């Protein structure tokens, strides 16, 4: 294992090509919207932007970050694009890259995105002062795919109720995997996976499917658990969705392989199939049914257009299917989550 001090590259979106950042000799660091930094983002960003980006900017303005070598932003939504603008203003000495991210997953979009990744690789090489080759990239993909596999395994255990510590602990592992050097992460996750599983019958929560965007605080999952929620399946930006396998093999050009892997990963609401408008609603229903959920919890950031705009269709489809939905609108602060306790408890009561 290298003893060299990590050279961190910050990022803020689950579509970030972390394996590429690693292949370039950097350590990807997900800037999570956590901590106690004072609210200062309003100096640069309007109040109507999502708390995720504002919280991240608060951290930057408060210097509550490791010594970042640069930031890679994905052009995934208006708010994230505005964050990249504000970051340049707040941190003029930082290197910043903005990568276009197609909303579609068809072949032409994959090809275009592959070009964007190639351009990013050139930028990263310039920042680092040295280039990297396809073999380096393949090795990084293999490492990140291993992490994805290990987290997938642990996630399944949470869903089955067989991981000690449950979803609270798993979220802590997600956060460490997103912010710590990759070799440490692999070592840690391998150790956890080797732990004996709990007997499946020990959890007695109500099975619920959780979906939404940014929910990194393990305390939120502790709250769910304490309210009697058992997360039987989930899809959030700060969970397994941030660790999807790139897959593929060396027969494909590495940037195309990464582009395909990232675009094919389980979708955030901002990526969609135009030939099936609003299909996210059917997808949520299918995933909820697949994990035998008795209800669905949607956790979305206030002012998040991609999710807010799709919720009415999701609500309709779930209602028609007889699956109750609880919508929790968040602001990246646990105090607001705590205020939801009564609603969550009532929801669980109704589902029992």
């Amino acid at each position: 294992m290298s003893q060299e001090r990590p050279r961190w590259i910050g990022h803020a979106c689950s579509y970030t090509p972390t394996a590429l950042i690693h292949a370039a000799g950097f350590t990807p660091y997900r800037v999570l919207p956590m901590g106690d930094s004072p609210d200062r983002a309003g100096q640069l960003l309007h109040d109507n932007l999502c708390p995720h980006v504002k919280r991240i900017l608060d951290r930057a303005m408060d210097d509550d970050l490791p010594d970042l070598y640069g930031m890679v932003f994905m052009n995934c939504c208006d708010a994230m694009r505005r964050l990249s603008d504000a970051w340049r203003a707040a941190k003029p000495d930082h290197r910043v890259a903005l990568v276009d991210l197609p909303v579609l997953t068809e072949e032409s979009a994959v090809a275009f995105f592959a070009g964007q990744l190639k351009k990013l690789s050139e930028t990263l090489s310039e920042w680092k002062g040295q280039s990297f080759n396809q073999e380096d990239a393949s090795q990084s993909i293999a490492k990140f795919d291993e992490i994805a596999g290990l987290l997938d395994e642990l996630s399944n255990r949470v869903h089955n109720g067989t991981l000690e510590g449950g979803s609270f602990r798993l979220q802590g592992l997600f956060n460490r995997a997103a912010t710590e050097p990759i070799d440490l992460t692999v070592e840690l996750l391998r150790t956890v996976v080797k732990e004996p599983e709990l007997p499946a019958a020990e959890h007695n929560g109500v099975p619920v499917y959780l979906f939404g965007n940014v929910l990194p605080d393990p305390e939120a999952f502790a709250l769910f658990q304490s309210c009697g929620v058992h997360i039987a399946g989930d899809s959030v930006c700060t969970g397994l969705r941030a660790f999807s396998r790139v897959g593929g093999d060396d027969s494909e050009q590495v940037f195309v392989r990464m582009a395909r892997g990232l675009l094919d990963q389980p979708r955030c609401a901002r990526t969609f199939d135009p030939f099936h408008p609003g299909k996210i609603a059917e997808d949520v229903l299918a995933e909820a049914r697949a994990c035998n959920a008795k209800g669905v919890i949607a956790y979305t950031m206030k002012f998040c257009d991609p999710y807010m705009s799709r919720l009415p269709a999701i609500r309709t489809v779930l209602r028609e299917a007889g699956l109750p939905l609880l919508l929790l609108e968040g602001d990246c602060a646990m105090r607001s989550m705590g205020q939801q306790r009564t609603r969550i408890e009532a929801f669980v009561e109704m589902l029992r």
Partner: protein
Amino acid sequence: MMLQYFERLASRLEAKIQKDSDKPNARRKFALEIAKLGARLYSGEHRVAWCGVAAPFDMLSAMNITSCFVEFVGAMLAATGAVGTFLEESEHGGFAADTCGYHRAVIGAAIKGVMPVPDVMIATTCPCTGGLAAMENLARTFNKELFVLDVPSSDTPESVKYLADQYKDMFRFISSRTGESLDEDQLRAAMEKSNRARELMVEVYRLAQSVPSPANGQSLANFGIVMALFLGTDAGIEIAQAYRDEFDEMIRSGQSGVPEERVRLLWLQNRIQFKNPLIKMLEQEYQASIVIDELNDITWEAIDPADPFTGIAKRTITVPFNGEVNRRLNHVRGLAQAYKVDGAVNPCHWGCRQGTGARGLIQAGLKELGIPVVNLEVDCVDTRNFAEGQLRTRLEAFMEMLRTSPSAQTA
């Protein structure tokens, strides 16, 4: 309801234009074409495409498709004063009041059956995520497939080719859904008309820069963004020519848009679409003239009719509100200098992440040029949240500040 509204509006405007046939009637001709477009959209007799703001309307015209961005309907509903019902409809349907009012209004209209079912739907990822989501919702409501134009942010040969290829796919999509085919001669003719309108609009904007300006708070309201709908048509040329002639005549006769113009203002982003007294107050009480709107500019080169896809892709990618805010800021700063403005008004449309989201950065960028900005908390469509008193007070304070500034005193 909408068809009758547009038909009545068109007939009233035609009568007025005929009555004053010796005048250029620029604004009336512009409004007349808007009314005619509205009537075509709602007549049920034309192929209709509901689109995103950055769709290539001149290309669609060449294919005999009556096309329009959906925000147009939101703006029209606001202008008629009927928007509240439709906003409430969408909110009852679960659409959060924190989303863009234009989109909530149009979704409400679709739910209430006040939007004609289109033949095709062409969404664009530019300018905003909310607009794309609204298009997806409308497509679901209409049970239509969506064609998405994914507009990259950077102006590179790869990006231009990516978008140009999508236009070709778009034509195939439209052909397969409507049976309309693309006639290359018609496309070429449309591009030539776009270029002619472009030349005239460049002239119009150049004339509007005069001190005092022939423009006022009403004359060029919504002009740039709506003119995109008339590119590629004779109507687009006629409107631009009428404005050019009108401004030219005003300058030659020493007439200004606002009598005794004292303060020159830049209006950022969209106008407030419903009737309100703010512009009148600025003009009458402060002799303040909105000489330029941010969206009123030509930022593209003439399209090569032999290669329209590349030219239009470049035109779309380089619009100032696409991509990083620096592109927009540089554009706004350029306008502020070219039009010699004293200050800027930014109606921070609630629910607009891409535009309003950057207000702190825009304000700081203009401040570097010594241009103060007043930010107004407003929803440009939702009349229910219009705090007239507060906005009036803010504008009055801003105008007092500008009137005491050295540049205004010498105006």
